């Protein structure tokens, strides 16, 4: 038994609205799984089902080998952290941490010990006597994590815990959560719609859409071999360029251009002749001296420049289709200039035009 959480054929309906459909997911012990998807795709719903806060319509949920589909949330061996912190505002930090434990009639010394350990790990010892109103957002979220920590459980659920924080704090706390996971080796299921969070934290990412899991894989797989056009477009910022054309033998024909696809790993061998979309990430387009090594090279006219400091985005057109290129922040370009770019097909993705699946 190596799985910490198993979800089998899970369905969830709100009245006539099907939010989750036949969802299967296995999460290993100590794994950090991130549920990533756009708003309304059912991430929170799935998390609430695992927590037991929603009654499932069909299917089963197993945690640590026990079927907990109909157990109370408190008996499932989970801790949960919410976006709005959900602290008990009239209690001190210490009260927040201890309330559940006291209610479960744990011995006083045990409670004190657990609070001590959690507050050390999260560095909230100086705050124990304060009320949540007297804490900053980051501190509140730390306390909320502490409340999950003192439960001494194997599975942590996070529902967009960092969404209410400013960018800097978010980055700091992200690192802290990662460190926490490394130290505790608990299973963590983490909902977010921030792909940076997903990429940096996850052992595996589950991309969700319309109540289903589109792709489940390591951040590398999701980024490098997106299973369909949706995932390809969703992951990566700036997002992938898509060129609609045809594949003929080993050539991708697009307008008056013909891109050789030698070196591309087809999923089921190369199709002979079909309508196809080529996806290439702006950061995989090369410029400058590197162009010489690229299997395919062409010229574009610079239309718009977006400098971001670390790098510069160049908007241009490739055979009439908008196309973005990412260049080094130090690179000198000006609008109207002709830019030589190179593409490497082995880093590109091909999708069937109809099914949008990876070829």
């Amino acid at each position: 038994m190596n799985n910490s959480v198993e979800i089998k054929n899970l369905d969830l309906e709100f009245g006539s609205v099907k939010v989750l459909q036949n969802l299967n997911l296995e999460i290993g012990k100590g794994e950090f799984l991130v549920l990533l998807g756009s708003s309304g795709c059912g991430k929170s719903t799935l998390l609430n089902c695992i927590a037991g806060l929603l009654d499932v319509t069909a299917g089963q949920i197993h945690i640590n080998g026990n079927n907990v589909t109909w157990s109370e949330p408190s008996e499932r061996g989970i801790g949960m952290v919410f976006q709005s912190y959900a602290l008990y505002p009239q209690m001190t930090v210490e009260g927040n941490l201890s309330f559940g434990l006291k209610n479960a009639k744990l011995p006083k010394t045990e409670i004190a010990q657990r609070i001590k350990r959690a507050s050390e790990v999260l560095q909230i010892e100086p705050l124990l006597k304060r009320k949540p109103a007297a804490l900053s957002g980051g501190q509140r979220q730390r306390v909320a994590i502490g409340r999950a920590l003192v439960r001494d459980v194997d599975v942590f659920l996070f529902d967009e815990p960092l969404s209410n924080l400013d960018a800097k704090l978010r980055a700091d706390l992200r690192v802290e959560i990662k460190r926490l996971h490394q130290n505790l080796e608990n299973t963590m299921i983490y909902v977010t719609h921030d792909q940076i969070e997903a990429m940096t934290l996850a052992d595996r990412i589950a991309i969700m859409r319309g109540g289903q899991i589109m792709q489940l894989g390591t951040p590398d797989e999701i980024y490098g071999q997106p299973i369909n056009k949706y995932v390809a477009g969703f992951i990566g910022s700036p997002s992938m360029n898509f060129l609609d054309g045809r594949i003929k033998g080993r050539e991708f024909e697009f307008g008056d251009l013909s891109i050789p696809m030698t070196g591309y790993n087809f999923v089921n061998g190369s199709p002979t002749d079909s309508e196809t979309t080529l996806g290439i990430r702006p950061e995989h387009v090369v410029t400058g001296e590197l162009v010489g090594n690229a299997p395919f090279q062409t010229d574009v006219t610079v239309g718009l420049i977006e400098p971001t400091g670390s790098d510069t985005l160049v908007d241009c057109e490739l055979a009439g289709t908008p196309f973005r290129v990412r260049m080094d922040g130090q690179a000198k370009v000006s609008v109207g200039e002709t830019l030589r770019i190179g593409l490497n097909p082995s880093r590109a993705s091909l999708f069937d035009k109809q099914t949008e699946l990876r070829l």
Partner: protein
Amino acid sequence: MSNGRPSQLFRNKSAKIAAIPMIVTALFVFVGGTAWTVVYSFTKSGLLPRLKWVGLDQYERLWSTNRWLVSIENLIIYGLCMLVLVFVIGFILAALIDQKIRFENTVRTIILYPYALSFVVTGLVWQWILNPDFGIQSIVQGLGWESFAFDPLYNADIAIFGVLIAGLWQGSGLVMVLMLAGLRGVDQEVWKAARIDGIPAWKTYIFIVIPMMRPVFITTLVLVVTGIVKIYDLIVAQTGGGPGVSTEVPAKYVYDMMFRANNLGQGFAASTMMLLTVALVVIPWAILEFGGSKNRG
């Protein structure tokens, strides 16, 4: 600091100028009227106010009048029962509705509806309902239970509880909607967190949700208490103070003294006593609510 922050006094000048007539009226009518009443409560005013000082005579007479003592006793009984019951009923109704029942809007409207009626209507309605000849008693007797007796308004010992029923019927709706608004203001994620912590619903209400609703409770408390202290029209419509003086209340005493018994001094003394009661409630509240907020941040 010549060009520092402009004086608060001169900000929004036109708004302040526009408010002056209202402020003057309010000061004149409320503060002036109140001061005038208190001053004249120390005089021997009869049909007309006269500045003939009698010291505390009016108060001595007041506190040795049986009717006034009964009024105070009634107010205490009615007030305490009303306070406790209206909060319990209102909160329980709100909690039930908050548990996502069906037809919430309909139920809420039905329960709030009595509040829209004037006390006179409520009083008359309940006078009829509690009338032994054609109210509840006669209906139950008509159903075959001949010995059934329920006529609180005709029994001097419990008549005030007949009034209490009507008061509750009218007041619970308001408390319910206020409580419901408070409950709805509680973040759903707090409820989820409590469930994960394994806290039973009743404990969540008592230890987490109700403390979070403190401002709503205090506002409701003030509304309910002032409503209790000034109760008058319900009594007039439902019992007229009877049987005997068994349902008399202070506000009615004031009115009767001033406009029926032509004894203004007595009325002023009684109303000064009522003002004192209200002040005892409102001033601590105001200190709690507004004075404390500076340190609470």
